[in-house]
């Protein structure tokens, strides 16, 4: 019978290499998958790993998709390190987009550029409130935060649909379920002409530094981590578990809301039922593949963004369904969990 036996001293080097190994395994399985579908595996790999970086424009699109993933995953890293399982970043992202759109829709020809910070602040607020519901229910009634945050995603989708099919529908929009296109002034400033990359990317990179400093250089961040690793030690130290819960959920909710605002007032420019693109769920994988470390998350966000773009390209270039993106995301997480398990345990054959 095969059994898992705890390794006395798990290898540190393999612990760091595990995400890379997982990527290699994902690629190998991907090659087999392409072959099984009758596609040229080399061409398939090219679509996923070369096309997204082959030109400055492709690179900028890679960054456009990586930005929301990075921002959401940074918040989730704080959350997961605190042992708070916010699975509903997608819902907080949607609420962020809705709140941001609400502010953006008030703009008219005479509105000044102050509207951009207001749009972003509204997005953060929307994410905070949505995550705050989860925190409140967990804090007051000890409701399971995994279920509550996940279920709230579906509520958020219904709120979004109600608004775009109802009160916020563009009267000039030929009855399409979408708001009017936001005024130009609400557009998140772009970094350069000819590319959709905006200041969101800078905010995300600033977030990397901020989260690193918070987690590893402040007592408050230390308290979050201790609460996640050893609740009894946190209690002994006097770190409040309620405070840790609220901090974790509000940081991750606010981050997801910000990502929603950047997206709706950035590349999309209006509120549509297609705002939820699964970034909130993909960011969970990004956070784990990045080892819940802010710097690691930069790389995993770029990788996940490649999968998004590769999936879209595979549709047009290879005639594969777009869901191939989801398959790759799942493969990567699965391979990572398998690698981590085998680093901590060894497989033994015993009768």
């Amino acid at each position, binding site marked *: 019978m095969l059994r898992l036996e705890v390794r006395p001293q798990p290898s540190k080097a393999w612990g760091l290499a595990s995400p890379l190994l997982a990527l290699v395994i994902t690629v190998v399985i991907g090659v087999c998958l392409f072959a099984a579908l009758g596609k040229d595996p080399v061409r398939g790999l090219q679509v996923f790993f070369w096309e997204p970086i082959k030109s400055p424009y492709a690179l900028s699109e890679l960054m456009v998709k990586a930005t929301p993933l990075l921002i959401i995953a940074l918040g989730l890293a704080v959350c997961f390190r605190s042992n708070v399982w916010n699975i509903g970043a997608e819902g907080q992202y949607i609420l962020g987009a809705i709140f941001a759109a609400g502010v953006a829709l008030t703009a008219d020809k005479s509105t000044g550029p102050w509207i951009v910070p207001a749009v972003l602040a509204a997005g953060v607020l929307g994410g905070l409130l949505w995550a705050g519901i989860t925190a409140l229910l967990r804090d007051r009634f000890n409701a399971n935060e995994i279920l509550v945050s996940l279920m709230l995603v579906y509520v958020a989708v219904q709120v979004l649909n109600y608004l775009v099919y109802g009160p916020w529908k563009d009267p000039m929009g030929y009855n399409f379920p979408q708001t009017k296109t936001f005024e130009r002034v609400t557009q998140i400033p772009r970094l350069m002409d000819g590319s959709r990359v905006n200041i969101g990317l800078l905010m995300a990179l600033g977030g990397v530094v901020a989260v690193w400093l918070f987690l590893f250089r*402040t*007592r*408050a961040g*230390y308290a979050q*981590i201790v609460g996640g690793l050893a609740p009894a*030690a946190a209690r*002994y*130290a*006097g770190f*409040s578990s309620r405070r840790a819960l609220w901090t974790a959920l509000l940081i991750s909710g606010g981050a997801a809301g910000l990502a929603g605002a950047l997206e709706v007032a950035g590349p999309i420019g209006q509120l549509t039922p297609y705002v939820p693109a699964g970034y909130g769920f993909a960011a969970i994988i990004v956070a784990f593949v990045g080892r819940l470390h802010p710097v690691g998350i930069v790389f995993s966000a770029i990788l996940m963004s490649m999968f998004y773009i590769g999936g879209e390209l595979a549709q047009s270039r290879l005639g594969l369904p777009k869901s191939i993106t989801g398959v790759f995301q799942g493969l990567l997480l699965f391979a990572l969990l398998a690698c981590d398990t085998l680093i901590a345990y060894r497989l033994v054959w015993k009768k």
Partner: protein
Amino acid sequence: MTPPTSPHRLQLAGITKRYPGVVANNGVSLTVQPGEIHAVLGENGAGKSTLMKIIYGAVKPDEGSVLFNGRPVHIRNPQEARALGISMVFQHFSLFDTLTVAENVWLGLDKSLSLAEVTASITAKAAEYGLDVDPARPVHTLSVGEMQRVEIIRALLTSPQLLILDEPTSVLTPQAVDKLFVVLRQLAAEGCSILYISHKLHEIRALCTACTVLRGGQVTGVCDPRQESNASLSRLMIGAEPPALTPRPSRAGAPVLEVAGLSLASEDPFGTALERIALTVRAGEVVGIAGVSGNGQGELLMALSGEDRRAPAGSVRVAGQDVARLGPGRRRALGLHFVPEERLGRGAVPTMSLAHNLLLSRRDAVGPLGWLRVGALKRQAADIIARYQVKANGPDAAAKSLSGGNLQKFIVGREIEAKPHLLIVSQPTWGVDVGAAAQIRGEILALRDAGCAVLVVSEELEELFEISDRLHVIAKGRLSPSLDRAEASIERIGEWMSGLWDDASANHKKKETAHAAA
């Protein structure tokens, strides 16, 4: 089946068991005669428990042979061990709290018997050996000593030829220990062999007729403990004699910790509620709290440390200030530092470095806005490692990479270096080797001499007698009046450990007043 010459009851030869990274038993041989009470002596981590689990079939040895009554046996699991006539009473009981005594015993037995039959045989066995147990009582209403009796009766019902007892007296009052010894001697006289695992030298010398000493997984001596002294046994066990501590009189100052009318229901449904605890600790004295574990020590310590903030207002005062409702951080700011019983997971975060573990209770390296000065943190950890002779791979070593004793030295050092006004220590030397224990006790006394108020909660009476100036006893959530060390004796404290101090202290008072009148 029995060979003509009287065989050894149990003979182990060359038993070796390797775990990843450690050899738990290395070529261990051990021979037990019928009707012998055989001690297995060794420090924590010497390999005693592994050896017993091998005999009981819970662990398979890598090498070596086991002969039972002269026949080679390969015991694959505890059921087979019991079928052969080997029973074991573990240190941690495996009883279900919500079931009755009889139901618990029934669970481990052949199902062909009815519950009524089992109840009858429990009563019979209990009467035979003077083990007082009511089969109809639910287990959660039993004291720890009573639970142990249930475990022993359960073992005896299988009519064992070899009974293994793992540290049986760690949960007993001195009087209960004497009772247990009577039972064990009766069993031995009937021909049952007993393997008695312990690190308490005086018990082994009082009870056992043979002794095998383990150190670092190897046998370091086989002797007759009745012919040995504590010093000679401890030389075999640790390779050195424990350094002696010379008690010095204390000069107690103003009260630092004042507890009055502290009553508190337990958070745990099977925990112990505290009842009107009253206690004072003055600057420059060590107050000890004795008691069998599970009598409210954990609950009291949580209420004192601030981890439990439900204590009635005004019931806990530190330096005159009401702290009953304050959290651990606020109490620490008043100079209260606490060393909890559990080191990994409560006193330290297992996967974090020693340097980072300082931050649980220390703020020296925390700057404005909660900024951490990592360099200062590491220097501080390195200082403690050097000063308390902690065997660790530097300040970056993870807490879980240290042995229990070394981590304890680090945690005690962390709290003592904070220069507390009041230090509360739970089980200061539990699982710590003799040399480190002496060092920790010495540090506690030095802190006392520097004017700190110290409260020590321990199950080791010898330790409390060694370092305390005054002693209390906790039993069933109530705290006894205090006794000066000079007035206290093992017998008296032992009686009080069963909760019987009201009559005793009343008598004592009467005598004193009579004395004064005369």
